[in-house]
């Protein structure tokens, strides 16, 4: 896994897909919903899932950074991916959850509309990313997962969260 996230991503999606897949025939992803789209992230990056709770706002932060929460004594930022990806509906309902990620020794919580389930995908089920319109910068999409009727957009969440575009870490993280 580390290899795909830490090296510079090659331009051709084909090679990136191949590289991530060699080691394990089935990888597990956490699928969740943002607006109308289904996304999935590597389950190994997920520390826990929490119900949405009140956040403390940070002065001067961009609108997709909702603030910080208390994670058993540690202060973690909360990112609303729906705002970041330009979803129209950003309500906080009973299914709104926080996915707490553990990336680059940091804890970051992201707000998503609903968590679906854990999905295992084999190499055959992961398709290269075509040019398509989505809220997400295609740079952070590692592939598309086909599961019957559903199409999952596979996100390189570590890369996204530590990207300079999101700007939540000081100095580092730019790839």
């Amino acid at each position: 896994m580390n290899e795909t996230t830490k090296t510079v991503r090659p331009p051709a999606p084909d090679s990136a897909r191949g590289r991530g897949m060699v080691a394990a025939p089935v990888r597990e992803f956490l699928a969740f919903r943002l607006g109308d789209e289904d996304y999935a992230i590597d389950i190994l990056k997920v520390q826990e899932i929490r119900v949405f709770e009140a956040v403390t706002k940070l002065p001067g932060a961009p609108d997709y950074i909702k603030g910080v929460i208390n994670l058993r004594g540690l202060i973690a930022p909360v990112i609303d991916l729906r705002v970041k990806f330009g979803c129209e509906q950003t309500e906080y309902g009973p299914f709104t959850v926080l996915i707490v990620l553990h990336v680059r020794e940091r804890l970051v919580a992201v707000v998503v509309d609903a968590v679906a389930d854990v999905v295992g995908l084999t190499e055959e089920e992961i398709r290269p990313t075509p040019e398509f319109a989505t809220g997400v910068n295609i740079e952070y999409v590692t592939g598309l997962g086909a599961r019957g009727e559903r199409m999952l957009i596979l996100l390189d969440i570590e890369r996204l969260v530590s990207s300079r575009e999101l700007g939540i870490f000081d100095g580092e993280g730019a790839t």
Partner: protein
Amino acid sequence: MEPRSGPPPGAPVAVDLTRFLPMFFQETEEHLAAMEGHLLRLDPHAPDPEALHSIFRAAHSVKGNSAIFGATRFSEIMHRVESILDRMRKADLAPTNAVISLLLEACDGVREELRCLKDTGNTDPTALQAVYERLSQLSDAALPSTVEASGTPAPRRSERLRIEVHLARGEGITALPLAGLYAELGTLGRVEDLQAGDGSQGMPALSLFLLTPESAEAVRARLGALLGVENVRVERHERAPPSQAASPPALTTAEAAAFGVFAPEQTTAGSGSAFERTGVFPARARGRRLADQDTSQTSFGRRASDRTGFDRSSIRVDVAKVDRLLNLVGELVIAQSMLAEAAQRSSAAGDAKLRGSVAYVGRQTRELQEAVMSIRLLPIDFLFSRMPRMVRDLAQRLGKEVELAIQGGEAELDKEMIEKLADPVMHLMRNSLDHGIEPPELREAAGKPRQGTIQLRALHHGGAIVVEIEDDGAGFDRDKILRKAEERGLRAHAGMSDEEVWQLVFAPGFTTADTVSDVSGRGVGMDVVERNIGALGGRIDIDSRRGAGTTITVALPLTLAILDGMTVAIGPETFIIPLSSISEAFQPQPGQVRSIAGGSHVIELRDSYVPLLPLESLLHLRGHAARPEESIAVVVEADGRRAALAVDKLLGQQQVVIKSLEANYKRVCGIAGATVLGNGRVALILDVTSLLRGGLAPAKDFEDIEAEVDPV
């Protein structure tokens, strides 16, 4: 693997000494520090024999350890030091300042090279040459035979002994008290071809050749005391040394140069040894590899404390573990207060048993929290113990006579705080020495003893610790400070009180020195000191009397992890303002708030006007705009600026545990950190200094904030 001549019978692979290097470094540093401490206290006229003996022991240990690890340069130096000390013990040589300085220099030199070795794996072979030669001159005046007997002997008078250690039950080298053993071997003589095994199949756990003037019996008895006499076999060995070991240790060979101060690796092990195959000791001692050896510290550290008895009653723990513990306890405190609140509101609130239990849990939790916090505390002596050396060196350079009296070194302070306090305290000490204490002649002329006194004290004062630096020097020159202040265009006039005048020295770039020395006087001083102390949540006071001396008082909170704060509300949000930066808080009277051009406000405070800054706009909080006249003004001061922050409500004072935002996010302008309130929610702690800087030039700083978050 290059072909080698066959191994001697039963000799396994050379032991991997690199595993023990972290301990070697640490021990040597400790011994050097001990030597230094004793040297500094040595009375030139009547040296304390016990102190001399302690220095001798420390030097001896350094010598022995260095020889084991092939750092022959160090052992040569320490050998000379021993000789000099021995002359002192026999009253053949007086520990004059010059002699002590030379010995201190030797310690410094070895320490410097040791660090270099630790960091880079190499040393400068010429670095210690000068000090070595001077030591030689002094020690060669008389080279007493007693030193010869206990020290590293000349090879020609020594015998080569072959030593094997066999342990019952076929245990390997890991069962041996290696640290103690190496120290012992180091004092006996020179070790060659040390080889380790796992003790199986009748192989020795350890075998080595020892070049020593002692008899085989004596060596067996000495080692036997450590390992059990029945486990040690010692025999005289006439065979030629496996390598060039008979030649005296020298650094001139090509290999020695390549490995820095380390002597050439000596091994005769063949590649087919059972031990190498099993991978018991896969790596060999190589100077180059030193830098990678830190990982071995844990296991060795345990052995070191077991065997050498350094500090049996304490353990080394990773600070991260302590911080985690602190975090968990912090959470427990919050959980406990939630429980207490729930119990109070529940229908069973009247139940005395429930009330009692909840109160008991609360007490225990707080006690636990205090106990965990105390783990991070260290005696301030860690800092103070560096001062005698600095004072001595500086006094010598300045031609002054100074006695340093240290009190209260046992007072405990947060470890991080001690580290951050080092520079400011050093600076203040240098100032006292340079500007405070007069030259001996001037002191005599003023009717004072030639020798000046600087007292360095630490004492607990409420929830704070106070560090005082008191000198009996000339005191501050009020007129000179005023004159210099005027020259620099600072607001100063003759009618100011002494206290106000002393505050002038904290102005950036202020100096009263007429000439700039490398000690002080460049004017990059007191303002930095004040800022550093301020950053630790402390404050600094000056009390000075002309001709009688100066006392500088630094008051600090006990720990960086806890802060006394005022909790304030702005709309639905809660913030903490550090109490140390608040000078007052009040509800403005009608007419006290004036609007000025551009929609900003000032508040009349006694005879001056202070800007009234609405906190919600400073912090970019939207959708809330109370009229400034209706808010509460919290007057804060930082960095010489003063302003009133307008908040909605004061919620109360409390101690909060400071948590870092940067751990998982990044620095936020105007925010010093965060804390978790009793209800489990996060509250931000304001950084008054950066807020005021931003508040007085809002437009610019807001841009900074925007730039920092880099919005898309």
